[in-house]
């Protein structure tokens, strides 16, 4: 098992929600030693075991940060007030939010970084918005840079 996991979250069929898998595909074309690249899709529960089996995980995901589309932020789960919508939960509602919350509750010690990209359009359909496509290089550069703690 490698030490580091680069994990993408998101749905390629919802325009900019697919930014995570798109970045992951680009990164995995130039793999680094000791790093695994996994597309986590949209099934949150399966991620619990996956994340907890690594020392360090970088998650790439479209995140609604109330910022201009294309804004990129690197943050740790504790730096953000992540909204757990427990009262609207359905089976597929076990998303990343709930997984991150549960990992904390269960005392998992994996070091998690989130690379959040503010999407413009997450309606049904394929392809990224121009402003999101334009920021892909910056996302990749940020992932390559060491995390600021």
């Amino acid at each position, binding site marked *: 098992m490698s030490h580091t996991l680069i994990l993408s*979250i998101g749905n390629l069929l919802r325009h900019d929600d697919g930014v995570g898998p798109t970045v992951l595909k680009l990164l995995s074309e130039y793999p680094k030693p000791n790093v695994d690249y996994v597309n986590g899709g949209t099934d949150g529960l399966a991620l619990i075991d996956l994340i907890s089996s690594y020392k360090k995980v970088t998650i790439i995901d479209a995140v609604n940060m109330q910022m201009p589309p294309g804004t990129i932020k690197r943050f740790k789960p504790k730096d953000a007030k992540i909204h757990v919508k*427990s009262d609207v939960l359905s089976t597929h509602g076990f998303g990343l939010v709930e997984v991150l919350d549960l990992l904390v*509750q269960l005392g998992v010690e994996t070091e998690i970084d989130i690379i959040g990209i503010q999407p413009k359009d997450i309606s049904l359909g394929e392809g990224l918005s121009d402003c999101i496509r334009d920021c892909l290089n910056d996302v990749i550069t940020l992932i390559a840079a060491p995390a600021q703690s």
Partner: protein
Amino acid sequence: MTKIDVHHVTRVEGHGNISVDLEKGKILKCQLAIVEAPRFFEAMLRGRHYDETIIVSSRICGICSVGHQLAALRAIEDAFNVKISEQEKCLRRLLNCGEFFESHVLHIYFLAMPDFKGVKSIFPLAKTNKDVVVHALNLKRFGHYIGGVIGGRLIHSTATDVKAMSKLPTKKELEEVLKRLHEAKEELKQGVSILKGLKFPAFERETEYISLQKKGVYASLEGNIYSSDVGEIPYKNYRDVVNEYIVDYATAKRAKHNRASYMVGALARFNNNGQWLSDDAKQIAQDLGLKSPCYNAYLNTVAQFVELVHVADDSIAAAKSLLNMDLKLEERSLTVTPGSGVGAVEVPRGTLYHEYVFNEKGIVTDANCVIPTGQNVNNIEEDFKALLPSISKKSQKEITLLLEMLVRAYDPCISCSAHMLDVEFV
């Protein structure tokens, strides 16, 4: 007047609404409306080659993807008169086991359990009942594992193929599967004490119970249809059983057979086939106070737990058989003949039917998929009607909870949706 309006019921798969109007104990309105947009899978399947039906229909559901694959395979085998080997049967039993663990564990612990603990989801339980959450995750992990080893990946198996499974587990993997099956059974023993602590609502309404049946086994992937009202019905005559129709307030088709409604799923299987459960499953049913016939739909959740024990036992037998075989990749020959085929299998939520009509090139010219939830909707509404008079004096909040719990007990699988992270920096 008491008005119950739940848009949408949470902790179920997809979107469904409860609408009830009660006046002095009299029911003026009582509806469970499935309001998901139609998904047109049957139309998408038309024009496809027979071997694509497995891939396309699997996408109907991320929880029962294996069930849809196996139903499609059975339909193809039925249409082209294909016989499958003992090796293939055992591998399918193991694959099915993974799906039952995934699905039943998800329902019992993640969707149904919070109601009994007075919380809105399993996440607060991680603080107060960490042992329950860890236990549930252990069982779920086992389902993930077996699905990956046998099916090639967790969901939407890539190994399932009309020519036989395209990937075989190694001897080492099968030994590990066997070891983990025994561990899963030990984990289930812990679950008994957790389930014993849950207080299920007292409610009984006898209905028609429908499942597959094959005498001598707890039918899952083969057998004819069995109705507790009329007995055995050939699986090919499934249309005479489901009699699908629509109502103007919902998008899902409904079904009825001998009376206004019937039930499919774990409780129906337990009632019809309980005598063929494994000895350990029978013992655990007894420990949990589940006796056949059981007319309390809330106890479908308990029947699911009993089924987990049985499925684990059945998979232990299948894994042992496979270890005694010299496993070889098979490539069944298949002669395409025009005509139709029906696949009937038991999936976690009940009996699933796939029917395909093929032309001389093996292209689908017509498709029909009948899912368990559509068959159960009428029965849930009939349960509402029987339950409401006895609870009409309770508060609106209490009535709502009891109705929601009843819907959840059926473990309905309505549809899927996409989600995204919503954060605010602190």
